[in-house]
C-alpha cells in the first residue's frame, strides 16, 4: 500500500506582477528580512575570495584589495601541482563517499530499529545514551579509538591476532575512520530520522495492520517511504559537502604510517595555507572545495528531480 503525497503536483510558472507581489506580501515579509541577513552575513564576506587570486602574505595582508599583487590562477596551480594534492583528493573523496553511504545507512537503520522498539522506557533510555558520544569531543574519542584499534590494543587482544587496523598504509584507514565516526555520531544523526518517523501518520500503521501487513512490511512500505523525502534531502546536502570532510578527526586518528591516506583537503588547505602563512593558497583551495561542492550539489539535486524524488532546490 503506497501512500502518495498530493504535493508532487506541478506548479504553474507564474508571471511576475505587482498584483502577485501584493498577494504574496506576507510571504515576502516573512522571508525578505532573512534574505538580507543572509546577504550581510554570508555573501558579503565572500570578498575574501579575492585572496585566492592574489599573493597574500602577512606582509601584504593589510593592504587594501587593489594594491595587492594579482596573480591570476597561480595559487590554484600551485595547490593542484602539490606533491600531495592528488592523493589528498582521492582520500577526501574516498572518505566522503564511504562516510555518506555508510553513515546514512546506519543512521536510518538505527532509527528504524529504535522506532520499532516496543518498550517505551527502554527506548527512551537507549536513545538518550546513544547520542552521548556525540558530545564527547573528537580528541577524547580519538584517543579511545586508538586505544582499541592500535596494534596491541584492546581489539587485538580480544581477537588474538594482529589486526593492524591503524598501521596499514592503505584505504583500510578510511574504513576505520568511517566506523569510528559512525560510533560517535549514529545516535545523534538518527534523531533527524526519528523525528521524521514521528511525523508519519499513525493511522497508516493501523490501516496496514488491519490489512494484514507484518512488522517488516509495515517498515518497508510505511516507515521508509515516510522518511524518504527527509533522507533524500539530507543525502543531497551531504553530497554537496563531500569535499569538506573535516580535518579534526583525520588529524587525531592519523599517525606516521597511515598519513598518506588520512590527508584530506581541509587539512591540506590548512597546512599549505595558514600553516605556511600563504593565505592566497589556503583561500584558493577553499574556493575549489566550495565550487566543486556546489556543482555536486546541483547535479545530485537534478538527479533526484529526474527520479521523481523531492528535490532540495
Amino acid at each position, binding site marked *: 500500500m503506497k501512500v502518495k503525497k498530493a504535493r508532487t503536483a506541478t506548479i504553474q510558472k507564474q508571471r511576475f506582477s505587482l498584483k502577485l507581489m501584493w498577494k504574496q506580501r506576507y510571504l515576502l515579509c516573512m522571508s525578505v528580512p532573512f534574505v538580507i541577513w543572509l546577504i550581510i552575513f554570508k555573501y558579503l564576506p565572500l570578498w575574501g575570495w579575492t585572496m585566492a587570486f592574489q599573493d597574500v602574505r602577512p606582509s601584504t595582508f593589510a593592504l587594501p584589495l587593489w594594491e595587492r599583487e594579482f596573480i591570476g590562477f597561480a595559487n590554484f596551480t600551485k595547490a593542484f601541482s602539490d606533491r*600531495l594534492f592528488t592523493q589528498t583528493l582521492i582520500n577526501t573523496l574516498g572518505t566522503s563517499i564511504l562516510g555518506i553511504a555508510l553513515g546514512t545507512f546506519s543512521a536510518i537503520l538505527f532509527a528504524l530499529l529504535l522506532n520499532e522498539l516496543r518498550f517505551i522506557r527502554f527506548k527512551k533510555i537507549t536513545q538518550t545514551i546513544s547520542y552521548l558520544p556525540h558530545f564527547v569531543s573528537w580528541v577524547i574519542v580519538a584517543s579511545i579509538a586508538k586505544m582499541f584499534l592500535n596494534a596491541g590494543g584492546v581489539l587485538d587482544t580480544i581477537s588474538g591476532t594482529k589486526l593492524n587496523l591503524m598501521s596499514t598504509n592503505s584505504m583500510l584507514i578510511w574504513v576505520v575512520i568511517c566506523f569510528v565516526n559512525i560510533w560517535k555520531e549514529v545516535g545523534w544523526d538518527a534523531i533527524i530520522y526519528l523525528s521524521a518517523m514521528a511525523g508519519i501518520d499513525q493511522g497508516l500503521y493501523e490501516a496496514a495492520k488491519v490489512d494484514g501487513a507484518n512488522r517488516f512490511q509495515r517498515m518497508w512500505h510505511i516507515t521508509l517511504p515516510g522518511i524518504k523525502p527527509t533522507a533524500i534531502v539530507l543525502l543531497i546536502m551531504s553530497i554537496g559537502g563531500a569535499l569538506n570532510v573535516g580535518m579534526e578527526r583525520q588529524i587525531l586518528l592519523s599517525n606516521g604510517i597511515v598519513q598518506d591516506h588520512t590527508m584530506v583537503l581541509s587539512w591540506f588547505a590548512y597546512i599549505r595555507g595558514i600553516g605556511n602563512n600563504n593565505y592566497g593558497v589556503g583561500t584558493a583551495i577553499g574556493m575549489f572545495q566550495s565550487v566543486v561542492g556546489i556543482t555536486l550539489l546541483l547535479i545530485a539535486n537534478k538527479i533526484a528531480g529526474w527520479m521523481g524524488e523531492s528535490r532540495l532546490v
Partner: protein
Amino acid sequence: MKLKKVKSLMVLALAGCMLMSGCGQQVPSSSGGESGSGTQSSAGSPEAAGTSSGEVIELRYYCGTGEENLFTDPVAQAITEATGVKLKIEYSISSDDQKIALMIAEQDYPDLIFTDDGSTSLVDAGALMDMTELIEEYGPNIKKFYGEELDKLKYSSDDPSIYFLSSYGVGGVSYKSDGNMQMQWDVLKENDYNYPKSLEEYENMLKSYIAEHPATEDGLETIGITLSAADWRWMITLGNPGYFITGGQQDNGQWYVDENYNAQFHFFRSEEKEYYRWLNKMYNEGILDNEFPTQTHEDYVAKIASGRVLSIMDAEWDYSDAIKILKADGKLGKTYAGLPFTSEESYKCASLMYKGLITGQGVGISTACKDPVAAIKFLDFFCSDEGQVLREWGIEGVNYLVDDEGHRYRTEEEINWEATDKDYGKKTGIGPYIHPFPRYGDGVVDSTGSTFTRRSKEAVIAEYDEEQRAACEVWNVELLVDIFPQPDEFDTPLYSPSWAYAKPAEYNEINQQLEEIAWSGLISSVICSSTEFDAKYDKMLADLEAAGMKEAGEILGTIIKERVALVE
C-alpha cells in the same frame, strides 16, 4: 501554541536581546588584565629607569604562550616601581590559533610582542620596530647583557635591524643533561655502571638484561627501547638521535650544514644510514618496541611509568610525568640516566656544547607602541643585574636572603613552598617573568659570586636521589654531567642554531614537505624487513631530493652564511 503565548515569547526574546546588548558593554571582563590608567609619560627623558612624571604607564604585551596574569604579584609591583611600567598581558588560548594573523589583519598591535613562531609574519607585516638605535641610546644594560652576541640579534644581512631580543638564556652551562640516550639505572648497574660506547655494546647490554629479566616484578614484558613517534615528537625521538648519536653537533633541526655551508637533510650522512639500519635490526629483533609508530603519547608515558622500558631517547620534559610516577612507586632503579652515547668512540656527544645564543624568537617592540622609550627602558631593566635577580629570586628578605659573604640563598621553607605549590609562580611573581624575556643561562654569576638563576651546581647536587649519588661515587664525579664531553672541548660555532631563525616563505613551504617525507620515510625504513631497508631508505632520500631539498638547502646555507658575516 496559542498565538498570545507565542507573541509574548517573541516579545520576551526581543526584550532579552535588547537588554543584553545594552548590558554587553558593562559586563566586567573576567579574562585579560585590568585597564590601568593609561596616562602618557613624557617620553624622551633619558633617565635610567622610571618616567620623569612618576606616573605609571601601561604597555600592552602579547605573549603567545602564556597565562592569564594581572601583573599584581609582588615581583610585578617591584618591576612597576623600578620602571614605571605596568604590563597588560594578553595571551593566546591555544597554540594553533590565528591571533597573529588577526592582529595583522586588524593592524591592532600591542606595545610589546613575544613573537614565538610568528616572527616572520610580523616582520614582513612591518609590525615590529627596529630597536638598534633605542638600544644604543637607552639600553646600556641590554648591550652589556648580550655583549659580543648582540650582533646575532640582527635579522638578516638585507635587513640588519634588531626586531626582537632573544628568549633564550645567554651564556651559562648545563648542570643537567639528557644526553643522547637514556638508560635505566638498573641496566647500568648490571653492567657495573659501564655505559655503552658503541651501538654493539648498547645492543648487547639490552639483550643480556632482557635475557636475565624478561619481565618486571609486575609481570609486564620488558621492552628494550621505545619511542614516541606518532606525532611531531618523531623529530625528538627518531630524527635527532640519528644525528647526535653519530656525532652531529650544531643543532640545525633536520639539516646538516658542513663547513662550506652546504646544507642537506642530515639523513643523507652515511653514518646515519647505518644507525637507522641498526634501528631497523632492533625493530625486527623485537628489542625496539613494535608499537612505537602508532602508540599514543599516553601509552608511551604509561609504558615508561610501569618501569618496563630499559632505554629511551627523549627530552626529559616529555616523559617527566612518568618519572614522577616511578618515584612515587619507589622504583628509583627504573628511572633513567642521561648518557653521552655515541655510535662510535670517536664521536663526541654535543649535549653540553654551547651552541650560541638562540635567536629568532623574543620580545620586540611594535610599531604601534606610542612610547617606545619607556618600552626599551623596561626591557633594559630586565637586562640589568637587578632585573635578573628580581625575576629569578624575588624580593630580598621575602623570598631570599643574603649571607655574610654576599651570596644569595633561599630558605628550605621557600624551596619547599615552590616544590609543592603549583601556584607559587602566581603568588610570588617568581617564574612568570623569566621566559621569554632576556635572561642569563644557568651558572652565570654576578658580582657577588651568586648565580643569577636559582639553579646552581650545589642546588643540583643537593637534589640528587640515591641512584644518582651512587653513580657519582662510582664514576668519581661531582655532577653526573661531568662524564660528558665538557663545553671547552668544542669550538663555539660561528652561527647559532638555525632551527630558530626566521626563514622566508619559499623555504618554509619546501621544508614542510621535506619533514613530511622524512617522517613517514624513516618510519617505513625502520619497520620494514631488513632486506627492504636499503630500498626504503634510499627511496626516502630520493623523495627528499625530488621535493626540492636542494633549493631549500641553498636558502638555508645562504642565511647561515649571512649570519656568520654579521658576527665577524
